[in-house]
């Protein structure tokens, strides 16, 4: 096959090397004279015989520079300037206003109405050249700023659309609310602080009589924590965990994760709370790595925080994460939450706090869990005074029937 020669290269841009100047003057003798001067400077010259025609050519041809006579029938120079400055497509055009009388008050009026510079009709060749060159220089700066701006906008749109699709992917990792097994009802509500959240949670089946569930928080904000959280969530899938550990012991999961997710060079890490529930023993076993956000709300309304002080993942190779076991009774609820909920600040800076959080839970003990969680979120939002929290805010609730 013939090697591709010039065909694979993009065609050279057709931008004219010669700058274009639009000259608008109703008087043919002076217009011809000025046009000849401009052509002698090597410029391409477009001519218009009044303001209206000039404006139409300006819109169509987008000249690098426009030289406008002040006094013209139909539409005078300053009015053309005003029209140009009101039209977003052409408002950055460079305009020189021509005057036969350069009284200062006229210059002030011309500037106020949108001219960039002035040129006396009696100006010397040197002055015309200098003003035209200065106008062309400004025009080329404006063009390069505009093209940079357009590139940035396009990049920004591309990034936003990528963020959106990444956000949709993260959302797809979240569980489907409802009954996750006989006697286990699950609900959740999630409000990431950015398009992408670094908090993730899930409920999975370990075997036919037990489930496990977790709430994790990747440190930091933005794309990188979200990706790390997604990777960790993948690690925590049952089909993967079963290759690593033999029992659904949350502490064993944490010890395994602790080896696989060391502190990164830039200091990123995870905190996580993991619990497992066995339907035959009605026991929840849980372990935590630096994550304090889980509680059990008994049927009688009493609330107990399920925490144990342990390092986040990745800090020390041999952190001895251990398991705590609690007995579940009929009608008990568990709520796993991001610290973003109880650390939602009021305008004064005061945090919502766990006391107000548990008081809200107590007040809504009789509300079904699928409605109680959004209520909790709404209360935190009311405290914060805005629907966007500074940190991801997630709530995962489980209600047990025995």
């Amino acid at each position, binding site marked *: 096959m013939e090697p591709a020669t010039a065909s694979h290269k993009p065609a050279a841009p057709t931008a004219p090397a010669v700058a274009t100047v639009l000259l608008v003057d109703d008087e*043919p*003798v002076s217009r011809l*004279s000025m046009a000849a*001067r401009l052509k*002698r400077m090597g410029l391409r010259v477009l001519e218009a015989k009044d303001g209206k025609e000039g404006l139409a050519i300006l819109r169509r041809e987008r000249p690098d520079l426009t030289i406008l006579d002040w006094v013209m*029938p139909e539409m005078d120079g300053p009015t053309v300037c005003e029209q140009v400055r009101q039209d977003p497509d052409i408002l950055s055009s460079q305009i020189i206003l021509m005057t036969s009388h350069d009284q200062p008050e006229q210059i002030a009026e011309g500037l106020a109405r949108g001219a960039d510079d002035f040129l006396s009709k009696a100006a010397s*060749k040197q002055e015309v050249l200098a003003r035209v060159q200065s106008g062309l220089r400004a025009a080329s700066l404006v063009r390069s700023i505009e093209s940079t701006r357009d590139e940035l906008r396009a990049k920004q749109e591309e990034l936003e659309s990528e963020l959106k699709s990444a956000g949709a992917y993260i959302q797809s990792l979240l569980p489907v609310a409802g009954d996750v097994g006989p006697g286990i009802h699950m609900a959740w509500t999630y409000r990431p602080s950015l398009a992408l959240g670094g908090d993730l949670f899930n409920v999975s089946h370990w075997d036919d009589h037990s489930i496990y569930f977790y709430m994790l928080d990747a440190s930091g904000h933005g794309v990188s924590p979200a990706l790390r959280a997604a990777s960790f969530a993948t690690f925590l899938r049952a089909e993967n965990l079963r290759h690593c550990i033999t029992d659904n012991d949350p502490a064993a999961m944490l010890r395994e994760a602790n080896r696989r997710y060391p502190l990164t060079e830039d200091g990123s890490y995870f905190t996580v709370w993991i619990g497992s529930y066995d339907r035959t023993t009605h026991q929840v076993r849980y372990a935590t790595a630096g994550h304090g956000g889980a509680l059990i709300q008994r049927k009688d309304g009493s609330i107990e925080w399920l925490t144990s002080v342990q390092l986040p993942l990745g800090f020390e190779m041999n952190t001895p994460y251990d398991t705590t076991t609690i007995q579940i009774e009929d009608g008990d609820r568990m709520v796993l939450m991001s610290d973003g909920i109880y650390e939602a600040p009021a305008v004064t800076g005061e945090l919502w706090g766990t006391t107000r959080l548990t008081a809200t839970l107590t007040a809504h003990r009789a509300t079904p869990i699928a409605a109680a969680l959004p209520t909790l979120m709404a209360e935190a939002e009311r405290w914060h005074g805005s629907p966007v929290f500074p940190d991801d805010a997630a709530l995962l609730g489980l209600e047990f029937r025995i």
Partner: protein
Amino acid sequence: MSQEPVFNLTEALTRVESDEDLFQTLAELFIEQAPLDMAATQAALDAGDAKALARAAHRMKGAILQFAAPRLFEFTKELESLGNAGTMDRAAATCAAVDQELQKLIEALRAYVSTRPAA
């Protein structure tokens, strides 16, 4: 009685960087255009329309500037000022002076063009 020439050819040619072909074109265009502008100026004066008079005089002035014709330029400038100021009583005399000088310039330009090879 000797009088300054109606226009200074050397200075006028300097303005067009000694491009005599261009200057000839400008002169021919002016010979054609100027009587029309003069008629418009006269009509404005006759109608007593000061604004139209100023506008017409202004337009002529821009063209005259190309030919280094100081007397005509000054008369035209004055006529424009009179129009702008609305002092029409003095405008008639100035307008007559403009017309007279303009005829001289047109004659002089005709004479110049006739010395040039046909375009």
